[in-house]
């Protein structure tokens, strides 16, 4: 197998409120000898809100992002569930509607004659790049610091699971990928009901109660099944679970405190990355076990 190479669509969160996520992505890529080219031209994907306002604009912007990955002739990887879904949805719609694709490409050509959405690049979350392309067995053989003393609760995030026809292959009712990754890192995976449920992130501003209850349920579920910490592949879920634990606790009438790691941070720990490399100081709920 040659060296794995990907075009990385970072999304906005990794550049702003979750810097630790970008740092740990690079730290893990380095350990696994994966080459990453960052798509610095990319715009925001619209985070599932822009399309409510202006669907066509959202399609054009996402098509442009994908077109830049295609220029590199590489698979695009994402490190955010919502980026992944928005980009995959755009790809699906453009690939199945020639007329729409032509309309979008006309707009792209107007601003840059070299820019065209062709549909040649695959789009996958870094989680599945690690699992499906790199391989869990190979990962396991590289683990230097097995996480064997920890019970780890996986939190998948909606946009990593549903709608299943646009996703990587986990069954949304019994997902296993993140559980498998925990086990490969030497940890014990925690079963709890909320692992494939929603954290409420997208209505945090307009429906704070709904959002807080959903986050509270997730944290409670993990804590009650004796998880030492949680892990998620989505920075938006992470923001919710890590920075909103207080609100969530108030909404469900209980104090809820549990460290939440990004998927990359967990893998990085198992591979022996330092806590500085993984940005562990950037968490609101302290990561106190490292």
């Amino acid at each position, binding site marked *: 197998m040659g060296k794995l190479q990907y075009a990385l669509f970072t999304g*906005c*969160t990794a*550049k*702003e*409120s*979750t*810097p630790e996520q970008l740092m740990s992505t690079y730290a893990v890529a380095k350990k696994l000898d994966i080459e990453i080219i960052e798509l*610095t*031209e*990319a*715009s*925001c994907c*619209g*985070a599932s*809100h*822009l*399309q*409510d*306002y*202006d*669907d*066509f*604009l959202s399609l*054009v*912007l996402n098509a*442009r992002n994908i077109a830049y990955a295609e220029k590199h002739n590489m698979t695009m990887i994402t490190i955010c569930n919502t980026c992944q879904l928005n980009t995959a949805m755009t790809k699906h719609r453009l690939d199945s509607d020639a007329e729409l694709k032509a309309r979008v490409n006309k*707009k*792209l050509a*107007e*601003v*840059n004659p070299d*820019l065209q959405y062709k549909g040649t690049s695959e789009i996958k979350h870094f989680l599945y790049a690690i699992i499906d392309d790199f391989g869990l067995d190979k990962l396991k053989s590289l683990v230097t610091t097995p996480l064997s003393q920890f019970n780890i609760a996986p939190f998948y995030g*909606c*946009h990593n699971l*549903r*709608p*299943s026809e646009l996703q990587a292959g986990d069954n*949304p*009712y*019994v997902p296993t990928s993140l559980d498998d990754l925990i086990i490969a890192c030497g940890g014990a995976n925690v079963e709890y009901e909320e692992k494939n*449920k*929603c954290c*409420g992130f*997208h*209505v945090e*501003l*307009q*429906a704070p*109660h*709904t*959002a807080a*209850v*959903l986050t509270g349920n997730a944290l409670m579920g993990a804590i009650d099944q004796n998880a030492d910490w949680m892990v998620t592949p989505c920075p938006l879920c992470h923001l919710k679970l890590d*920075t*909103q634990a*207080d*609100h969530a606790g108030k909404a469900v009438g209980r104090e809820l405190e549990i460290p939440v790691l990004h998927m990359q941070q967990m893998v990085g720990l198992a591979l022996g990355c330092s806590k500085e490399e993984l940005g562990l*100081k*950037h968490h*609101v709920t302290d990561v106190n076990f490292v």
Partner: protein
Amino acid sequence: MDNSITTQTITFKVFRFNQETDYLPYYNTIEMEVTSEEVVLDILNRIKWEHDGSFSYRRSCRHGICGACAIKVNGKGVLACKERMNDMIELFGKELTLEPLSTKRAIKDMIIDKEDFWVKHEEVEPFLISHVDEHPEDEHIVTPQEAEALLDSDLCIQCGLCHYSCPVVEINEDYIGPAAFAKAFRFNADVRDEGVDKRIEVINAPGAGVWDCVKCFECAEVCPKEVNPIEKITKLHNQVFERGDALNNVATRHAVGFAHSIKKHGLLDEGELVRYSEGNIGVIKHVPVALKMFKKGKIVLPWNMPKSDKLDEIQKLVKSSSTVKF
């Protein structure tokens, strides 16, 4: 193809409750030989016929048409008459829990009180509103293209699977819910209909309408008829903006704010999105969390806001490809 019938021993945990006599629900454990030909409804029938004649559930058509037989197997919403037992066993293993769609609405065993579903349904005026000429000169023809604009929303059988799988329905009793939203779209998209104004008013209401959807896609995943309610919810959002009916509130600004931010930076300015959406006063409630985040290096100050490379391209696209105004 191998057509031989296979048999497996399955343990069922069956939800039991009788509103008239029971204080709390309980579960019966029943072991059964299940053949590869059976569907979930066959199991419900056999529980009644072979184990307990008082076991209650709804079914009628047995062909995935009436929507009566919806229940949950290990938490997954299914139409009992359509769902193959083999698929359930493959997915969940040999211990299966059978529960009504919503345990808190149980009347007897699998039978629930679906009143809230029908009340929400009624709110969106789920019928064609049209001034019918009683003595028309021609037929009123709907072209195939016009019929396609319904995007299969007319396939809904009102089984309630999406409604009772929706996390917002569970938390917010005012929330109208995916099935009723899909129905609102179904009639709004009908060329013969004249009731759009009223329906938009209903689905646009803060706290009850489409703005409270958390975008979890549970409804799309569970629907046995591929109605894809969340797709219709997005279309309703679009209708609200396109018609100029968007209220100026935190929910609408939350969507519009992305366009502003992208135009300025290419990327989203997270802090500014919250400020713009909430307004200068509303934003104050976010200060405590923002301070905690700031201390951990999670807030980028305005003068350090990162920008996309080739921002001019993005800005031109925002200009050339915008289709709505707010």
